[in-house]
């Protein structure tokens, strides 16, 4: 049972592509093996910056032999058919075929084709070059003299060597020979670029891992990560510091070294005046180093770097060199920090505060070609935030001020350098120029929540701005008909809608979404029509005629309903109950929708509710059947009390009058539990009604009156939820 060792040795593979490449290699090779009936026991792939390695254990020495029987024409068939059969079966003479007998067909020819299995080695020599040639790198390249030809090999970076051996455990090992664009598969690889650059001959995986280890290469990325993490923690601990862990950075750094050596560098404590997030972003993004904590929350003026070299000076020169770069970068960051808080030299209004001055620059930044500039967008968000403020108990002036400044940090030097600091820098700069803390908070938090698990803004001013930002985005893209479709949602509109839903529900806010959308839509609509230039782009810009505002608002509301369903389903709510509530007219208050769904769920969980539902269904079925005969709306009028003859129908009529009124009144007061309780009192009279009363009475007047009574029952219940949508 031989094992396969494959190593594709190249110039440095980008760290971000390594893991996927290792997975792809394993998947592609093992799939190809299985397709060829080469079943294996296990496979594992590895990756370093310079090599992609695959180890497949327990392969057969050869493919199994295949025996195929192919049915041919009947004996005595025309010669043309016989010749065709011989050709397709690869036989020389018809005597080579056997003759089989079938009770229906009689005698006919059968060719037995035996295909001896190929040796595994030959199959692999065929599989690997094909996989290498079509490997799914996110980006690949050509190189060298061979790149003059049109069909040149592509790889992520130049491919320099291939190891491919098949080795029987404790026994022989052989090279699987093949060649791809001049690169020959063999048994030779190389160690660490600087510490062990010489060639290494390998026979099998165990040798290979050992030899690499000796040649200062840790093959397994997870081992490199573990080494880095442990060494970094120890080094920090020895200094009384704590490593600030960063999984993304750890993964990347492990993809930049074959032999991780963790070192510590230092910078001047004076830089600690910078916001800690800025220090971290600078050191992380530019230098791929980790920052350290000194005590509970303060950053230390030291950092952890991961080098690829065991240096004779213990890494002193490497640490000093890195520190020099970190210092230069921090000096840049400090320059941004100072510049951003100072007036602009070319400011239009010299008396304006620094962030306000930067706003002018937003007027030149295009948000979307059909939705105007960021400046115009800020104006809309500001107006909307002011409008929303009273509804979320925020001060309109503060909400407008926060919205006004919310995007100003996008044109600061710091956010230009570190986009991930947007919002946060706005907060720092707002506080620096003496804005209210609630305004600074709102600037920081208005992008939130960024996803289903991100925190939501909770203070009123932040809520107003966060809602305004998201609603403006949604109505804007709705107005230019850029709605999400299928898996495509380039403007993250689903996330924006979910953000609105979470902010409203988790803060317990009352908001008539329909009217809010109308308010948000108005300036967007005006802007979109204003900027449209029929001479330039008649078809693309401007409001599509077929989509006037009410239709657009309805479509956006329906989108919210969909997102709300997804949200509630994730929380475990029943899909049918959500439908039952959404089917009611005018449902645009998210919080009330949810309350109603919850109340309905509890109602139907109780015995009275379940039984009443059965009664409702019976009534609805009868009505549906009779409406087919008499026409829709035939029973819409009120019943005539004089025609109530049986006690059960009198009871129902009495109870219905009381319960219907109570349910309606309580639902209006948003006491959905109370409304459900009122309906629950109908259970007994409904049960009795169906027991004692024949709805389709022979007397047409009685029949009509009873159907009208049932229709009243249906309507009373629909005042609380559309029970026809309830499943089960």
């Amino acid at each position, binding site marked *: 049972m031989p094992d396969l060792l494959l190593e594709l040795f190249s*110039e*440095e593979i*980008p*760290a*971000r592509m390594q893991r996927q490449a290792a997975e792809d290699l394993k998947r592609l090779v093992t799939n190809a093996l299985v397709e060829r009936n080469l079943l294996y026991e296990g496979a594992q792939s590895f990756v370093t*910056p310079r090599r992609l390695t695959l180890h497949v254990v327990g392969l057969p020495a050869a493919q199994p032999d295949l025996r195929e029987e192919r049915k041919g024409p009947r004996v005595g068939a025309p010669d043309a058919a016989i010749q065709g059969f011989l050709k397709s079966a690869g036989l020389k003479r018809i005597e080579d075929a056997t003759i089989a007998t079938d009770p229906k067909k009689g005698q006919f020819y059968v060719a037995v084709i035996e295909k001896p299995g190929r040796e595994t080695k030959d199959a692999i020599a065929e599989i690997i070059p094909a996989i290498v040639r079509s490997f799914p790198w996110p*980006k690949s*390249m*050509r*190189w*060298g*003299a*061979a*790149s*003059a*030809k*049109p069909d040149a090999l592509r790889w*992520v*970076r*130049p491919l*320099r060597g291939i190891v491919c051996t098949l080795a029987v455990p404790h026994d022989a090992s052989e090279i699987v020979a093949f060649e791809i664009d001049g690169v020959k598969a063999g048994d030779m690889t190389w160690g660490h670029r*600087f510490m062990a650059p010489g060639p290494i001959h390998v026979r099998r995986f165990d040798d290979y891992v050992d030899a690499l280890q000796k040649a200062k290469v840790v093959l397994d990325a997870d081992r490199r990560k573990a080494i880095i993490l442990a060494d970094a923690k120890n080094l920090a601990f020895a200094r009384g510091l704590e490593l600030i862990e960063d999984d993304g950075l750890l993964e990347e750094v492990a993809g*930049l*070294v074959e032999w991780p050596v963790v070192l510590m560098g230092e910078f001047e404590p004076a830089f600690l005046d910078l916001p800690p997030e800025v220090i971290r972003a600078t050191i992380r993004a530019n*230098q791929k*180093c980790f920052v350290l904590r000194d005590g509970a929350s303060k950053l230390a003026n030291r950092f952890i*770097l991961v*080098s*690829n*070299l065991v*240096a*004779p*000076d213990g890494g002193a*020169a*490497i640490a*000093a*060199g*890195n520190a*020099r*770069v*970190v*210092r*230069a970068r921090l*000096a*840049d960051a400090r*320059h941004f920090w100072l510049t951003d808080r100072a007036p602009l030299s*070319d400011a239009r209004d010299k008396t304006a505060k620094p962030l306000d001055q930067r706003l002018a620059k937003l007027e*030149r*930044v*295009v948000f979307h*070609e059909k939705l105007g500039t960021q400046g115009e967008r800020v104006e809309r968000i500001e107006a909307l935030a002011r409008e929303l403020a009273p509804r979320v108990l925020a001060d309109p002036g503060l909400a407008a001020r926060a919205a006004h400044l919310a995007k100003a940090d996008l044109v600061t030097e710091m956010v230009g350098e570190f986009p991930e600091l947007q919002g946060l820098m706005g907060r720092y700069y707002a506080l620096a120029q003496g804005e209210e803390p609630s305004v600074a908070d709102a600037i920081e938090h208005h992008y939130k929540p960024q996803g289903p698990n991100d925190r939501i803004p909770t203070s009123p001013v932040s809520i107003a701005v966060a809602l305004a930002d998201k609603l403006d985005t949604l109505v804007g893209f709705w107005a230019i008909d850029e709605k999400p479709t299928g898996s495509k949602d380039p403007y993250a509109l689903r996330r924006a809608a979910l953000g609105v839903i979470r902010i409203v529900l988790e803060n317990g806010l009352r908001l008539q979404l329909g009217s809010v959308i109308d308010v948000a839509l108005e300036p967007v609509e005006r802007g979109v029509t204003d900027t449209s230039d029929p001479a330039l782009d008649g078809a693309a810009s401007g409001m599509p005629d077929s989509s006037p505002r009410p239709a657009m608002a309805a479509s956006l509301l329906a989108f919210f309903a969909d997102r709300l369903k997804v949200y509630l389903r994730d929380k475990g709510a029943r899909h049918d109950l959500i439908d039952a509530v959404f089917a009611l007219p005018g449902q645009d208050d998210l919080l009330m929708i949810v309350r109603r769904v919850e109340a309905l769920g509890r109602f139907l969980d109780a015995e009275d509710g379940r039984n009443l539902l059965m009664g409702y269904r019976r009534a609805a079925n009868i009505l549906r059947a009779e409406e087919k005969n008499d026409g829709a709306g035939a029973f819409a009028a009120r019943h005539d009390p004089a025609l109530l003859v049986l006690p059960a129908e009198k009871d129902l009529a009495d109870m219905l009058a009381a319960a219907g009124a109570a349910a309606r009144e309580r639902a209006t007061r948003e006491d959905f539990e109370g409304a459900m309780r009122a309906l629950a009192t109908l259970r007994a009279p409904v049960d009795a009604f169906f027991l004692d009363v024949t709805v389709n009475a022979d007397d047409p007047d009685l029949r009509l009156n009873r159907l009208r009574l049932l229709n009243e029952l249906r309507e009373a219940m629909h005042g609380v939820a559309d029970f026809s949508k309830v499943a089960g």
Partner: protein
Amino acid sequence: MIHDRNPMPPAPDVALDPTRSFQGLILTLQTFWARQGCVMLQPYDMEVGAGTFHPATTLRSLGPRPWKAAYVQPSRRPKDGRYGENPNRLQHYYQYQVILKPSPQNLQELYLNSLAAIGVDMALHDVRFVEDDWESPTLGAWGLGWECWCDGMEVSQFTYFQQVAGFECAPVSGELTYGLERLAMYVQGVDSIYDINFNGGDGEARVTYGDVFQQAEEEYSRFNFEHANIDVLFQHFKDAEAECIALLERGAAGDRHLMALPAYDQCIKASHVFNLLDARGAISVTERQSYILRVRELAKACGAAWLRTAGGRAA
């Protein structure tokens, strides 16, 4: 001339030591790449943003003919001016550019050897190849490669050109671009560009980078950001664009082209004027893209013309 049969090695010349002087660094790289058989060119005599713009790289990387060249290229990036106040940023700086077509098998080794030649001890320093895909929207060019790190400092760009002027490179060239000031700071161990020792002299005889360029950085920053005449520059852009197109038309002669190089000069000019306008803040975000596109169209047309010249096609 009498030949000494046992010549003494020359005394180490401090002025030529790559770790002691800026010029020593340049001369060492020149010697190194001359030994590799490169044509030692001089800087292109026009304002460019990077060594890549030199026709010895842009145009010579097109077509099948082998080509090896190396040169220093003064590079101008008007927007990077900091009035001589930032120790790491300049609006005028030097690149050392190597172009090898086709890219040799041992290009990484050659590059590392060149670092060793200028005094980087790779047993002591951590040299790394970190992903950096290169793209020049104005030249319609892209390639894959790395930024080369020395103890965390980016000292070079290493690129395998895949496309230039919109044409697939066949064969692919390898391009090395050394940031000379960065490297000099590194090997000399100084923290400011302006403290780089230019001539290797000590005491009175020492000339620093600041002595040579500090004043220029201040003056050009004023020019780039405040005083360059915007109307004149817009006119220059239009003129260069029009001249480039005119030369491309007039130089066309059947399947050949007779004026690809002069046309390309106009493309270079347009590109630099655009950079100046950009530094002056005269080009809005929306317009920016369209200007880049206009320069790219010129570059593409020049590349197409070059492929119809003797230099651009097969022998």
